[in-house]
């Protein structure tokens, strides 16, 4: 074969040397320095509009939530641009927005699919930041994904407004200066749920946990177990199940013979629908164990899940961040404009995403700039009202919102197919407030 290469001689070595020199020099020739003359990334000063990125799960276990979040974002953009009836812009206090975009710039948006995977979410977020030039991005439905995006936000210097994420870690050990969470967390669920459980189920119970095996499941399991053990309950077992398992029968069957009389499902989205439905099909709720009725608890509830689980949710206790049946001005305004737009009431995921978008926009307006360092300072320790949860504080120490928590129960006599959750108790924010030190973590610098 004459086609094989001859051994390297001096001439080809020289050529190769010259070529590799050129190769190594090219990066400095071609690299563009797009942000050299502005002092923060994607500065919209010279453009007529600003772009938000909405990065939600469109496929996977949390796709239903993602679809509802996207609806809320589109509604928020409409309201910010002065279209539609304005929704919560009519009730939000204090309010600096004027319904003409933000600082006079029209709001536009781009969307992406997180696939409920950290990798895909970060790739999608990077596209929004690097290609579409977003000034803020938002989205959620999985705490693992939210935490991954939040640390990306810190690296990129672009604010990330978390959507639905309930893990303590999001504003605990993994908190970031560029990440903000309006949603409540597992600790608050536990603190709110405790007194109600004590009243309804007594002090002598044996609990069995089934937990989604990732950061949110772990922290919720921990917080709820701390609460119930504080009541005097015994924890029989804690079993971790993979996210998106689909079939939970192999996990539910052992519960029957474990001697437990309470099943706590630390599941969310389609996982919760499947595990709850299967638990009911196994006849758990009709059983008498230790002389008591067997009970199921779903610490984090949402109306979308209740809809999916149908009849099975009747009488089951849990907590929720917000419910469309609330009668305050903010909630009514939001439910009205969401209903007019889409024909059905919004979920709690939609609510938190809508509020987050408005809060960010308002902070820009108050700061008078889109510079993230200033916007972050405007959001920190900001107090507001009229957004559906009563007076709320955006705590500066960990970027967590503190507000009332709703303890709810699956409605026994639903009047419509949306009237699925009955509010049992509104736990005041003082009762669920905690010291930011207990979860540790570092926010990091304002300027990156």
């Amino acid at each position, binding site marked *: *074969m004459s*086609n*094989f*290469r*001859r051994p390297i001689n001096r001439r080809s070595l020289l050529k190769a040397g010259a*070529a590799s020199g050129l*190769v*190594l020099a*090219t*990066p400095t020739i*071609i*690299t*563009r320095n797009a942000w050299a003359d502005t002092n923060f990334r994607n500065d919209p000063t010279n453009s007529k509009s600003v772009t938000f990125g909405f990065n939600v799960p*469109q*496929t996977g276990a949390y796709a239903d939530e993602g679809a509802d979040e996207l609806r809320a974002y589109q509604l928020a953009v409409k309201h910010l641009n002065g279209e539609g009836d304005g929704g919560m812009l009519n009730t939000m206090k204090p309010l600096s927005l004027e319904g003409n975009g933000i600082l006079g710039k029209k709001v536009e*948006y*781009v*969307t*992406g*699919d997180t696939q409920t*995977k*950290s*990798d895909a979410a*970060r*790739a*999608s977020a*990077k*596209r929004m930041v*690097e*290609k579409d030039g977003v000034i803020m991005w938002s989205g959620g439905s999985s705490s*693992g994904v939210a*935490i*991954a995006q939040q*640390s*990306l936000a*810190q*690296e990129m210097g672009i604010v990330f407004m978390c959507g639905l994420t309930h893990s303590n870690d999001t504003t605990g050990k993994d908190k970031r200066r560029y990440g903000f969470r309006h949603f409540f967390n597992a600790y608050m669920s536990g603190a709110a749920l405790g007194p109600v459980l004590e009243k309804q189920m007594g002090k002598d119970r044996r609990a069995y946990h089934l937990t989604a*095996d*990732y*950061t949110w499941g772990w922290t919720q399991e921990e917080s709820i177990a701390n609460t119930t053990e504080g009541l005097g309950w015994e924890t029989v077992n804690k079993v*971790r199940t*993979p*996210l998106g398992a689909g079939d939970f029968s192999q996990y539910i069957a052992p519960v029957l013979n474990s001697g437990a009389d309470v099943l706590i499902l630390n599941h969310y989205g389609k996982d919760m629908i499947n595990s709850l439905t299967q638990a009911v099909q196994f006849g758990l709720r009709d059983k008498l164990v230790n002389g008591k009725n067997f009970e199921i608890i779903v610490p984090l509830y949402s109306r979308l899940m209740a809809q999916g689980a149908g009849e099975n949710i009747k009488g089951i206790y849990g907590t929720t961040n917000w419910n469309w049946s609330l009668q305050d001005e903010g909630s009514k305004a939001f439910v009205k404009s969401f209903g007019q737009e889409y024909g059905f009431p919004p979920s709690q995921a939609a609510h938190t995403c809508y509020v987050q978008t408005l809060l960010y926009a308002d902070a820009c307006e108050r700061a008078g700039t889109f510079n993230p360092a200033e916007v972050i300072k405007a959001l920190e320790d900001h107090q507001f009202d009229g957004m559906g949860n009563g007076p709320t504080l955006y705590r500066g120490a960990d970027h967590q919102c503190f507000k009332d928590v709703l303890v709810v129960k699956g409605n026994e006599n639903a009047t419509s197919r949306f009237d699925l959750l009955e509010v049992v108790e509104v736990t005041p924010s003082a009762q669920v407030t905690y010291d930011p030190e207990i979860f540790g973590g*570092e926010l*990091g*610098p304002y300027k*990156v």
Partner: protein
Amino acid sequence: MLTKVTPRSDLLMFVLFTLAILAMPLWLAPIGAGYPDLLQKFAIFGLFALGFNILFGLTGYLSFGHAVFLGVGSYAAVWSFKLLGMNPLPALLFSVVFSALFALAIGFISLRRSGIYFSILTLAFAQMSYNLAYSVLTPITNGETGLRVLQSDPRLLDGSGSDTGPLISRLFGIEMTGYSGFYFCAVLLIVGFYISQRIFRSPFGMMLRAVKSNQNRMSYTGLNTRPYTLAAFVISGVFAGVAGGLLAVTDPLAGAERMQWTASGEVVLMTILGGAGTLLGPILGAGLIKYFENIFSAYNEQTLHAIFSFLPDVIEAPVVSIAGLFVGEGWHLTLGLLFMVVVIFLPGGIMEGLNRISKIFSRSKPKPKFTSSSQSAAAAE
């Protein structure tokens, strides 16, 4: 394109390839792909597919579990960041060592069988590794949450606690994100391409092609093919490991989903779409799939309306609603259709299409005879 392979034409191809890769930020910008993250993905998955092609394209062994090495490379690199510091060089060294060890072990067992049995064996290993990473080995892999570098990690070489900035991999002060990250990946892709080119032209590569054409005949002549196939398997595993390491270098995070069977299937798609057994094909295929994944999936109704706004309203609405099925979350559908078209009409992948086009233009010249090491001869199998 190149019907007769000479050292000169090889050199020309290599130089053109190098220039094309390094100039990607310029010529990909008009189609909306000229931003650093996607460019990095092009280079990284190009390298992954290039390595896969050394095994599949040359020996014909179809591995359905190649994503294992991608995942192992990522985990090894992130652990190197955690223990040794944020320099990418030791991280890549770790990736190479661990992916090579895994490839040696998996290859040693799987290569006892060929054909569909080999594919199933590699798939089984991939699923095992995925489940290990996802739940059993949670202390090492951090399960579903994914392995990240934390401020509290030891990081012996650059010291923890001293640096409060974001944890980004740095090559002697150059941050491995954005365009500099892309060029780091690009240089490794070019090195990988050079190695792959040399393997294709070597007696070793010839031996691998012989395995593909008839392994029994090779055995009858008294030749043991196992060392050759195992070497090809390990080399291609190391390519995948480096690609995984680079994923971690550009974004210090590793998750179990990188090992999922869908990721293994993706590299098979890339290689077949581009043209198995050709040098450039797998890289083209990788680029095409990543482009679809990142650009098509981001189209929403708003963008479609903007594209079709020139149509009258009566036609625009149905056009947008039909096109909407194929973009956004429906990008898999578009990819599936494209894949079917390519497999049915161009079994040799995009490279065969390019060859046919170039033949149309050079028809007037007398047709040169194919040499035995011609690329399209292997692709037609």
